[in-house]
């Protein structure tokens, strides 16, 4: 028996199946599973066994609601991205991309290894790495501007070309603005050096990311966040994200030179 979703706005959920496990791990979001766990486990095992990307649309009969699911095999685990969508609401104005496109963008980034969703243990491991270069508070737009200037200088010392600095600092600005706008007003940025890369860690203690704001077109109802994460996924080599009711941490790893794009991506 499927339960009709409550009238919450569409949200992204991420689950993880580890090879051999009998239950799923909740990585992003909370509340009930979008479907019976047995179905999700079966699809996740199939995706992992065959090392194939699996997409499922599961409609709620007699309604306009559906679950859009992507199963993405990665080494010893399978990440499951789920968006609970009401097809009547799938398009928010002419310029807003559909939820399905958002899901596919995120799934493609996970499949290419450019986006990782971190559970709390993985986040703790990642945060222990690297050598600190600088730290900036993020409390308002002035501190974001200061962070841009300081990081630009630091990236130059780390051997980033001008073009590479510009696109990296643009992404940093997007992440930092999001932390200021939606992150409870007290964020931090830390720049680390890690294996020849720059690692930028933008953390806040806000209520967790509202994923559906991520891809809003510029000039939409909320001018603040137009397409910010689209820019980040486009330009940053490796993005890792942990988000929940205790806050959001975004880790942006960038090489001084743009890596060769692998053919599968």
């Amino acid at each position: 028996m499927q339960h009709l979703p409550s009238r919450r706005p569409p949200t992204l959920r991420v689950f993880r199946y580890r090879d051999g496990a009998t239950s799923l791990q909740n990585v992003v979001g909370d509340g009930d599973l979008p479907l019976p766990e047995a179905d999700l486990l079966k699809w996740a095992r199939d995706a992992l066994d065959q090392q194939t990307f699996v997409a499922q649309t599961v409609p709620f009969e007699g309604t306009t609601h559906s679950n859009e699911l992507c199963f993405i095999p990665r080494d010893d685990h399978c990440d499951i991205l789920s968006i609970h969508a009401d097809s009547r609401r799938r398009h928010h104005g002419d310029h807003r991309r559909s939820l399905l496109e958002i899901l596919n963008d995120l799934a493609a980034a996970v499949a290419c290894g450019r986006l990782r969703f971190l559970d709390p243990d993985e986040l703790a491991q990642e945060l222990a790495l690297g050598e600190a270069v600088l730290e900036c508070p993020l409390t308002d737009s002035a501190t974001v501007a200061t962070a841009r200037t300081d990081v630009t200088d630091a990236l130059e010392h780390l051997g980033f070309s001008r073009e590479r600095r510009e696109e990296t600092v643009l992404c940093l600005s997007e992440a930092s603005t999001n932390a200021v706008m939606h992150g409870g007003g007290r964020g931090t940025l830390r720049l680390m050096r890690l294996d020849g890369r720059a690692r930028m860690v933008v953390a806040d203690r806000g209520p967790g990311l509202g994923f559906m704001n991520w891809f809003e077109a510029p000039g939409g109802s909320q001018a603040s966040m137009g397409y910010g994460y689209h820019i980040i996924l486009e330009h940053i080599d490796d993005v890792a994200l942990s988000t929940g009711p205790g806050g959001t941490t975004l880790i942006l790893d960038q090489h001084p030179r743009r890596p060769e794009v692998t053919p599968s991506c």
Partner: protein
Amino acid sequence: MLTARLEHEQEPVIYLAGEMDLDCVDLLRETVEKVGEGADMIILDFADVTFIDSSGTGIFVRLCLDLQVAGVKLRARSIPPVVAQVFDMLKVYALVGDEVFPS
């Protein structure tokens, strides 16, 4: 930080300089208001803009669309590469119309 200087040439021209981010919303709107009633075209000159992100872009797009509704034509000129790349990525030309960017 962004600064805006209004010059009354053949049309009112707003010369922007500095960084266009979340902070520029009030400055842009106040400067446009100074143009006053009666103008049917306003030109934004981007030559000295050194940075723009999606927030700055969103504010520019919103301003364009609002002025279009009010019957005022907004024209953007002297777009430097650092701005053009972001506008391109965010499909600004399709959002506000190519006529905003006369070649």
